[in-house]
């Protein structure tokens, strides 16, 4: 008898009625994107660990009563995934509306206007109004750093900045304080950014931020553009080196 070792087992599944094959261990989101099936996300960013916080990538899997986050669910043989349904569309709209209601997102005066993932998501999901009561919190703008700025009013707590700071830069300057709607991004032990001893000033956090929460200073309305595509290359280069 000969034994066969399967290193990369292949799996076939259906996404939105389309037959697709993938490697075992791949997530639904990865496979869907490889096959040009769009699943909206905000907290996910290729090159960072999966967070599963924005809940925009929720999909239906046939036979399961629950919804599943596509970014955190690995594919299984014979799975039938549905990424769009009236229910999912409605939930996604509600989630993005809630983000707008949570803090003070005023696009017309934002440096990221026109280059903002939250704004683009709202356009994509055809949101024309917010049905929830606005919270209008009074929030701080941390302007203490020499060339970067944190505006809590525009933060959606996707914690991409926290992850990139800890996982890629290795500084772990950023973290989260507080609970619930009072949670907020902090530097070191909740110090002004400019006084941080650990921040290397690399600027990765600014580039991964989906909104105008983390920006370069000296930018005016609509001038802030982000480069989020450096991460996969960085990860690839590190893997090649090691």
């Amino acid at each position, binding site marked *: 008898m000969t034994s066969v070792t399967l290193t990369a087992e292949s799996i076939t599944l259906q996404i939105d009625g389309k037959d697709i094959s993938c490697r075992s261990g791949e997530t639904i989101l990865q496979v869907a994107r490889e096959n040009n099936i769009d699943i909206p996300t905000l907290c996910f960013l290729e090159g960072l660990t999966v967070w599963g916080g924005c809940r925009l990538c929720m999909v239906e899997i046939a036979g399961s009563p629950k919804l599943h986050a596509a970014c955190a669910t690995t594919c299984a043989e014979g799975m039938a995934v549905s990424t769009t349904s009236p229910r999912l569309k409605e939930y996604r709209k509600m989630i993005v509306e809630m983000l707008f209601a949570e803090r003070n997102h005023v696009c017309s005066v934002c440096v990221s206007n026109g280059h903002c993932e939250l704004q683009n998501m709202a356009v994509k999901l055809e949101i024309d109004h917010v049905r929830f*009561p606005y919270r209008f919190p009074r929030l701080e703008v941390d302007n203490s750093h020499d060339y970067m700025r944190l505006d809590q009013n525009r933060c959606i707590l996707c914690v991409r900045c926290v992850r990139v700071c800890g996982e890629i830069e290795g500084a772990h300057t950023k973290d989260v304080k507080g609970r619930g709607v009072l949670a907020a991004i902090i530097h070191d032990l909740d110090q002004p950014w400019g006084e941080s001893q650990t921040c290397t000033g690399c600027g990765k956090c600014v580039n991964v931020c989906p909104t105008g929460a983390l920006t370069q200073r000296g930018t005016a309305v609509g001038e802030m553009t982000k480069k989020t595509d450096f991460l996969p290359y960085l990860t690839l280069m590190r893997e090649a080196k090691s």
Partner: protein
Amino acid sequence: MKPEELVSMMEKARADSAAFKHEIRVCTESGCMSLQSDTLLKTLGDEVKSRGMTDKVHVKGVGCMGLCCNGPLVKADAAMYQFARPENASAIVEGLSTQPVAELLCDLQQPFFTRQKLVVRENSGNVDPESLIDCIAHGAYQALLKVLTTMTPQQVIQEISDSGLRGRGGAGFPTGLKWATVSKAGGSTKYVICNGDEGDPGAFMDRSVMEGDPHRVLEGMAIAAYAVGAENGVIYVRAEYPLAVKRLTKAINLARRHELIGHNIFGTKFSFNVELRLGAGAFVCGEETALIASVEGKRGVPRPRPPYPANYGLFGCPTLINNVETYANVAPIINKGAAWFAQIGTEKSKGTKIFALTGKIKNTGLIEVPLGMPLRDIIYDIAGGVPDGKEFKAVQTGGPSGGCIPAELLDITVDYESLAKAGSIMGSGGMIIMDETSNMVDVARFFMEFCMTESCGKCVPCRVGTYEMHELLDRICEKRGTPEDLQLLKDLCDMVKQTSLCGLGQSSPNPVLSTLRYFEHEYLDLVKQAQAAHGDQSHAATGEHIELEVLP
């Protein structure tokens, strides 16, 4: 410790306590201690000493006796005293040799005591939780000895599976199945964790078990560790339970000193170490993945499952997480057998459950009853009904994740299935009773406020959804709500339930959903009142609640 030493220690301790003619037990748990039961204990000791009766009377502090509303409780031989104060000490000691003190007597024949079935709490109120010797005299560590010397891990898991024990933390997952999953998981290092992060409003069952009989929890964990092949255990207790922390610390130290935990327990190959970790009181840390993150020293937020802790838990190792009460059920099952345990309770819910009775009820305190008891018997027989001639309205079970059960459903039985069918959950065992004066929308708002402040903030539906639901409930309560607000509230409940990351978010709409199910007229009444007060206009058109702020 050698197996023979445990037996000789037990026999000696029993002979020692039999040498006393009288025994006085004083409840020294948080409830009674807040009424100076610790002073009472000391005064009783002094009284006995001053009368020169130290060789005849044994005075000791014990765990909870259940009827907390009448505390401090004192058991003097066969008599139970209630509302005992330090100044009654002399009369109580006097009463030992003459007649019991009539004005303090508590009737032990009332249904509150007679209708209970004590399995987990059988030693609570009998043993001194701070004395290992006393616990051993009452049979502590006998089950561990039996397991280590006569049973294989597979046999232990089989015994737990056969007993039908289900997780007492809330969800009711079969304990035997969980143990089997962890035991089959690969990896040389495994952990067992005891979840003592009890945070539901009005719940104090686990606190009582940890304060009243800590060795039983340790023994249960050691047996679980043997069954799944773990060598390390962690007890996660919230720092708001200082007495439980103190008693557990002492219990761990004593057990370690007597080699009941540590290397080569009872001379076998099995080693087990336990560490105590304190939580800072975040409710979400009762969720298993958040608890693991907290133990690891990280921010206590949940992560998506799978992978489940059974495969990927503490520090990435297979981890067994059970509730305090679940572990406390293990030793009796091993000692008396799975068949004995399985005959208590119902078809699918075996054994007993501790409930914490609070709210508008005559007897507040802790009870342990067989699963499947009708809710009516618990409320009216054991708990004595609603005081001041008021009408019973609803009982909230399962904490902020649970729901309200109205008076018309009082005849349902209390077990996992029927509570779920009624739109509530068993939860960890809190029961908050409400009378006719409670407004159910206000009740829903209270629980939503709890969920809002306890949401960790990781996922959007829970973080913002609980805030928005609370805001809408607040509007409706304050008679500012519109029919649209009510519809939006319903939509939000559905969305938060479906899309949230962890159990806290997924179950946070339950208090709203269950009150909507049985008391929708109260919501509609408030909305109608709002419309009558403001005309048939929305709150926005009335000009109130619009706060314009200058944006940065």
